[in-house]
């Protein structure tokens, strides 16, 4: 499979954008430490993960993605076991169990699960490409996704369930689901969502913190400056005080004096906006959009359905996580805990995204069966 591989079609633009975003992320994390000793190790860790991730891109690109699709059964099973294990055994951290602690590092299988689900769905849509796109087809795809997603929902980790849901929906959309089916499903989803929010404890399927987040977003308490709205408000102050040119790298008062919370992960976009101003924010958006567009280019070039769906899924993943994260930072949507792709600190998330990029590169490398 590797022998005779031509790197002629390797998308160096995509790789360049990813490396740029990741490097910028590392630099920003370094600034965001802001003297917090507990965060001192994050820079070197993120750098290590980035370098490993770079290797992963090339490794995965070298392997034909078809092999992964062929291994879908063991892959699915192992993923499910990992998710069940995390559900059962992991100790609670920050209110939710989402990590495996291996050798002092927190490994988050959920991040990997999103890539696995993209692969599983890609295989499913390739297999069913000639079947009618009816309700049965739709429900089968939900079953495939649901087998893994339910364990994520049980963690509980609603944000990533939504991410997976969006990936699934966008894939179903491109595979020709009928508009009528969408309307019915959307109606059902809205009904379920509303009841989930409105049903009081203890019957609600939502955890208290999830309900609280939704409520603080919908009805912020003007007096609760140190309450739940504190983090969001400080993020707005950070972004707003950045102005057009920013306060300069390492000179953002909100970041450096630690008024901005979780500034190396969820709110790193605020830290960027404060220190690099609107220019920094725009550059991040432009780089993200560029990465998404390159992934979509790979999807259009792909030689088969599964290749298209992999590249498309990764594009949706990056788009949705990026948009949601920035949306949270500028207080357009409730706090979700989704990281900013490639920029936020988080080894598992970065590695998984690198893995996804590797798959996209693998797709684009092989978009022609034969080279003459």
């Amino acid at each position, binding site marked *: 499979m590797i022998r005779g591989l031509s790197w002629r079609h390797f998308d160096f633009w995509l790789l360049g954008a990813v490396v740029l975003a990741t490097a910028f992320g590392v630099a920003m994390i370094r600034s965001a430490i802001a003297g917090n000793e507990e965060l001192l190790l994050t820079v070197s860790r993120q750098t290590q993960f980035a370098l490993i991730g770079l290797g992963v891109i090339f490794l995965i690109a070298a392997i034909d993605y078809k092999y992964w699709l062929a291994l879908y059964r063991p892959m699915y099973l192992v993923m499910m076991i990992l998710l069940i294990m995390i559900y059962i055994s992991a100790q609670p951290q920050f209110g939710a169990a989402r990590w495996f602690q291996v050798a002092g590092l927190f490994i988050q299988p959920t991040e990997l699960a999103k890539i696995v689900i993209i692969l599983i769905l890609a295989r499913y849509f390739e297999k069913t490409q000639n079947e009618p796109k009816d309700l049965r087809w739709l429900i089968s795809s939900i079953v495939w996704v649901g087998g893994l997603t339910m364990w994520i929902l049980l963690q509980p980790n609603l944000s990533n369930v939504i991410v997976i849901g969006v990936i699934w929906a966008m894939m179903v959309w491109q595979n020709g689901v009928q508009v009528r089916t969408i309307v019915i499903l959307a109606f059902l989803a809205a009904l379920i969502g509303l009841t989930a929010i409105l049903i009081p404890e203890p019957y609600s399927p939502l955890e208290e913190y999830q309900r609280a987040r939704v409520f603080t977003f919908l009805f912020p308490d003007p007096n609760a400056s140190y309450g739940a709205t504190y983090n969001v408000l400080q993020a707005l*102050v950070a972004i707003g005080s950045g102005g057009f040119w920013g306060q300069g790298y390492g000179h953002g008062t*909100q970041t450096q004096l630690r008024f901005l919370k979780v500034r190396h992960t969820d709110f790193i976009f605020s830290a960027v906006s404060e220190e690099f101003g609107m220019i920094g924010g725009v550059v991040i958006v432009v780089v993200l959009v560029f990465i998404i567009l390159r992934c979509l280019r790979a999807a259009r070039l792909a030689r088969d359905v599964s290749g298209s769906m992999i590249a498309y899924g990764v594009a949706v993943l990056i788009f949705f996580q990026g948009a949601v994260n920035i949306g949270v930072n500028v207080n357009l949507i409730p706090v979700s805990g989704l990281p900013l792709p490639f920029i936020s600190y988080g080894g598992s998330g970065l590695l998984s995204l690198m893995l996804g990029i590797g798959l996209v590169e693998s797709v684009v490398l092989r978009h022609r069966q034969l080279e003459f």
Partner: protein
Amino acid sequence: MTSSVSDNKFHFSFWRLTLFYVVIFITFTVLLSRLVTLQVIEGETWTDQAVENFTRAISVPASRGIIYDRNGYILARNDASYNVVIVPANLPDDDADIQRIYREVSAITGVPVNSGTLEEAKLFAECVEGPGITQLVELGDSLAPYSAVKVKCNVSQDVARLVSERTMDWPGVSIEIEPMRDYPTGSLTANVVGFLGPIPANLEDEYRNLGFVPRRDKVGYSGVELSLQDVLSGRNGRRVVQVDVAGKEIRNIQAPVSAIPGSNIVLTIDTRLQAAAEAALLGEINFWNTYFGEVRISSGVVIAINPQNGEILAMVTYPTYENNRMARFIPAYYYEQLSQDPRHPLLNNAISGEYPPGSVFKLSTANGALNEGVVTINQVIDTPGQLVLTEKFSPSDPGLERPFVDWIYDDNPDGFGQLTFKYCIAYSSNVCFYKLGGGTASLAQGNREEIPEGLNIQPLYEYARALGYAQPSGIELPGEGNGLIPSPQWKRINKGENWSTGDTYIASVGQGYVLATPLQVIMSGATMANDGKLMQPTIVHEIIDENSKVVEKWFNSEDFTITNAPTDLDVSYQISPSIPNLKWDITETPVIKDYDCEGGYCEETGEYKTVDPFVVRSIQEGMRLAVTDSQGTLYKIFSDFPVAVAGKTGTAEYCDDVALANNRCQYGAWPTHSWTLAYAPYEDPEVVIAAFLYNGGEGASVAGPVVGLVMDAYFEIKSIDIARGVEGN
């Protein structure tokens, strides 16, 4: 092969894919426009908020001025009080270490490691014992982790040293040094020095504008601590610093304004004389109370003043309070106890207490009578044991007969017999002064032509005022009383009754409605001793600023402000550097309103007059005779005194609430206050001493010995100073 590949290729539906591109475009457009709104349009608002986040103004406390007595003896200073504090953010990370530190700190300070809940701890004020160390630190950690939490306040120096030695083992634990007012002389000078307290809630804004920090800075509540608050307090410094989210100071944002320490104040008090005066007063009070087997004399005042410059050398009041007990906070039970005491220990009775002055007031009557020509210097006045007056409330009133008794009546019903003016003063003959004040025209018996027209009440008021009565002196102490010299109008308004001849008789001897503060009494004596020159009484000798320089300061006695230049010449006088402030000279300054009197009724002529120096001299001679003549009221006390003394005693009948409640206001046997006023040396007076003992009885035998002892102490101290080569007072 190639075709099969192309067959398998995914064909994106154009509109479905385009819709995704559109979604991407719209989403990021919305996000970017939001970014523009926040950063460009609302940028300034958010920047202001960011600045507000990290900016903190810190008030740097100024040290309060020290109060010295005239010899440099410290009366009020700033002592260090040690608090054991914990800065939560500086505690070690390891819980076991924290627990070890808590246990060890608990062992030394006695504060339990755990006590109550966090919620309960919130209810406790700083320094109040109750919550455990864990609760206090946890509470502090949640509010401001870089601010010190007071675990135990006011620990001993030993504990402070122990804690300081362990700072290496106990990261986060330290000793905070808090300035605390300390009064080495305590209750001896409490009435003059006063005490401090927290800034009252209703004045918080006012003080905040002056840079004070409520709940941290303290302000004067009484004494010179209150009246000279502006000078003593200095000015707090100010630093504007950048802080991080935990409240840790990063750097100065603005150039810091350093605190200006308060000025030091040198009082005119001589602590040695003050102590001697207190001892004399307490000794006398205890003697009589023991003698009678009951608390007969409940309070007393001793004042010593230099008549030439008005400087108060001693001002003792009994009972008083211990101002050191108010140093950290004002204990409620103690304050309650003091404020409910009918003897008013919290008030400086030397200036606040208003009592009938009795015979010491005769100096005013004497001044007026001789100056107005009511009597001539050698005129012989008949002074029987009592006078019977036909008391009239109006000219047509047929009148009622009422006896007016001399104090000698009980011993000798015939009275003093024939007396000249000076002997009237020396013997303190009531009958003589009844006649001088009210005349003899209304007498039921005796020679009505002897003194056909007395001084009368309105002129008496004028002469009393000229000696300092019926007005606050303007001394730099808060809470001064006005005193009272009645007038016919006053009586009509306050008593609903016309003025009668008898009222004039009573007022002439300083009784009835006449009230005076001990300070006013001593001022009248000082004015006579100083040849008619009334000096502004003062308690402040000089004010020394932070550069150890004596500064020029004026005191406005009306609004109690201290300025660098005179404000209102009538009420503003220089308090530093020490200079004698002449209020007026009764022999030169026309301060006495002239009246034209006939038959007891007087009308203003619209003119002002002075007192003939001869009158002043004659009264001085009369006061001297009280010492030198064997029948003089002060003969027993001062005849053997090595320095020539002159003086006047007073036995003032009174019937106040306390006496009424004890059913002691029996006709002809009212309880009496004891007064004595004396000055020395007679030829060139440098000290006037007055003593007042509430319900003391006869002036000469109760207040007299007190004045004698203080006079003794004064010249003793003077000789010590001269022997040491120090300039005397």
